[in-house]
């Protein structure tokens, strides 16, 4: 089995932490993992991606185009920028909170239109698509900075990960410093609650053949 997750966002949004959390949880659940993260100069307010590859076999850490099972977009434009990685039948979870660059180039950024594009194009082509303002959700729960935690919790709550949310929380408890733990727990729980449980939201469980032997 293999499960490839691409996390995309803007420097400072906690992409690297999100990928560490997912990778550690996957390892705890018994899989091999390989990640590739953007660190250094590219991180400062620039586009940042993190590749998390989970599976039974050791792979290179970069996901080939058209093979990601899940894209977690912490920002709408960054989700769109990385759509070429999504396989047919993959899933998309996107944060509607846009980060508009202060010095914009020739392209004007209109987040609402972009979110419209994602809705129009991905909903049919994805196994599931979840789109919400996770930054607001996190802010309401105590800190806007935990949008990354909200999104991976939502992915777990929607059954989009090859391991259960308990593994994730177990890692969060270890990795997040004690003084931030309560607020992150609040964000974690609220994000999971925010996933509607009815069939309507186009969220189906991903097929996870071959995973059971490892979990």
């Amino acid at each position, binding site marked *: 089995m293999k499960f490839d997750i691409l996390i995309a966002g803007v420097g400072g949004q906690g992409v690297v932490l999100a990928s560490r959390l997912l990778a550690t949880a996957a*390892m705890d659940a018994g899989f091999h993992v390989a*990640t*590739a*993260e953007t660190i*250094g*100069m590219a991180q400062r*307010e620039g586009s940042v991606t993190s590749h998390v590859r989970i599976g039974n076999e050791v792979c290179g850490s970069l996901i080939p185009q058209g093979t990601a099972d899940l894209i977690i977009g912490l920002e709408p434009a960054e989700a769109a920028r990385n759509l070429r990685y999504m396989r*047919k039948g993959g899933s998309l979870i996107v944060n509607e909170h846009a980060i508009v660059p202060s*010095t914009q180039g020739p392209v004007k950024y209109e987040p609402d239109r972009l979110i419209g*594009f994602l809705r129009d194009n991905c909903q049919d082509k994805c196994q599931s698509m979840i789109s919400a303002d996770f930054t607001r959700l996190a802010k309401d729960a105590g800190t806007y900075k935990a949008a990354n935690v909200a999104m991976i919790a939502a992915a777990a709550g929607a059954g989009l990960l090859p391991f259960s949310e308990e593994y994730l929380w177990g890692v969060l408890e270890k990795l997040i410093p004690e003084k931030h733990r309560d607020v992150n727990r609040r964000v974690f729980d609220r994000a999971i609650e925010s996933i509607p449980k009815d069939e309507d939201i186009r969220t189906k469980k991903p097929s996870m053949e071959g995973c059971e032997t490892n979990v």
Partner: protein
Amino acid sequence: MPLSSKRILMGNEAIALAAMQAGVQIASGYPGTPSSEVMETIASHAKKYGIYAEWATNEKVALETAVGAAYSGARAIVTMKQVGLNVASDPLMSLSYIGVKGSLVILVSDDPGPHSSQTEQDTRAFGHFANIPVLDPSTPQEAYDMTLLAFRLSHEMETPVILRTTTRVSHGCADVITGDIAQVARDIEGFVRDKRWTIFPKLTSQRHPLLEELQVRLSDRFSGYFRDNSFNSISRGNSSIGIAVSGVSYLYAKEATRDYPGTFSLFKVGTVYPFPEKAALEFLEGITDLIVIEELDPYLEEQFLQLAGRHHLNVRVHGKKDGCFPVSGEYDVDVVIDGINRALEGSDEDVPALSHSSPAINPADVPHLPVRAPTLCAGCMHRTVFYAFKKAAGRLRSKQGVDSVFSGDIGCYTLGNAQPLNMVDTCLCMGAGISIAAGLSHTQEYTSGKRAKQVAFIGDSTFFHSGIAAVVSAVYNNADITIAVLDNRTTAMTGHQPHPGIGMTAVGSPAKIIDIADVLRSCGVGMVRTAEADSLDECVAAATESMQFEGPSAIVFRGRCVAISKGAGQYVIDKDKCTRCRLCISQLGCPAIFSVSSGLPVIQDTCSGCDLCAQVCPSGAIALKEVSQ
């Protein structure tokens, strides 16, 4: 710690733990992405295990320190990035003649892409140039295991060994099986006087043949590793097409050819220099087409081409030189698939082309997206200083007709080149800002009529790295320059390592503070002053005064790095007072302020409260947000 445990580690952390398992006693380095976490990890465990760990002022000093330790029989490691090895190359080239006692591992991280470097150079070529063995891991687990091998090899062969990684190994994380780490042994023999430690022409001429002979012995030994070492392997396929790989390309090649099991023969080499010729020759038997997959330089490709030429082998070698693979940039599975397909076109074998996976959404359908170039952080002190010089230079131009040239340097503040600040006219390598400004100032007398003022920006850590020698030279030669030291009290770009201006060592012990302003004064800089970066007015005044000074002048701007210290709080814009003049947006480029065209600017949550926009706003519309409760 259990005897062997599995955990998720970054490649750099794996190397550090392996060095500790190998009993490393002395570690020295200079931070540089993607290498820094090796030293950081060792330093964070140093006190517990009794290791001596330090950040040196630059890579040359770091290497020489480690060399001194190895001369006395210690197990030593030195860490740096690829451009750092250039700085350390002077001692390195002589060291290969002299060799070491104890063991010395030189960790150098290359950066194909490049993600955060000035160059895309290949350390394998440096190993070849310097005659120093190079190991090239493809995964964090191999990085771990090869570090152990590097210490052993260095000790047995009395030579330094380069462990060369690339970004995807250094900064990739994976599950790694690690061994037990013990308290460091106190078993260093100590320095023993011997003629072999003093390089002289006579010694060089004696040692050179031995050095060449060592390369042959090592090459044979590495050929032997194909039988009994997992870093090197040969597997036979049922076609006459072979693939040769090293480093992370091994994994890309494996994944690219996954649907064709047993088709290609594979030559995987982890011990890249000296090239294991005997094993390579054996591999080439029955191969008509060899596809070499490697990032950066065509190092393996050249080795194979030479070998085929010398033995008159009938093999076509495909790689960078015949245009099958890109000569620059980072590789991935898709790049490798394209390259293999190009090579297959030229072969006689009937192997079908490899196919890419097609994405769910056609990339051409995605609308144009905003460009998101990296910029200085919201609230970064460098923005205030750059803006102050911009204002001072503007006045100098309008009042006295003097143009200003701004030479930048390597660090976060290289990002001062971004719009709207646009304050970096030159940037070459660590410490070059000051010397280039000096060089430009000496052309002044030849450019008749055009008056220009030279300003050099340099960070605190870079100042200690290679700025001081440039200051001495500028003063001695009376260059008319202004040096602006951007002192944010840390080495910010590489992850906040301490340096001699801070008063703390790598392991967190208190240390003597080397005061940058004092150093500048004692170097003879004519005018030296300090300014607090949180006051724009003070910065503009200091910039103006120093630029009007004739001869070398300097200002140390002291501030904070927002990534490690908090500001006053968040700022807000009063929509009644704001006149929509948009100065706060058009002048500063702070990523926390944005606005839709002609609308009211909005300050976002990422504001770190530096107060700069409030000082710039002519209408007093920006103020600290009052916290409710």
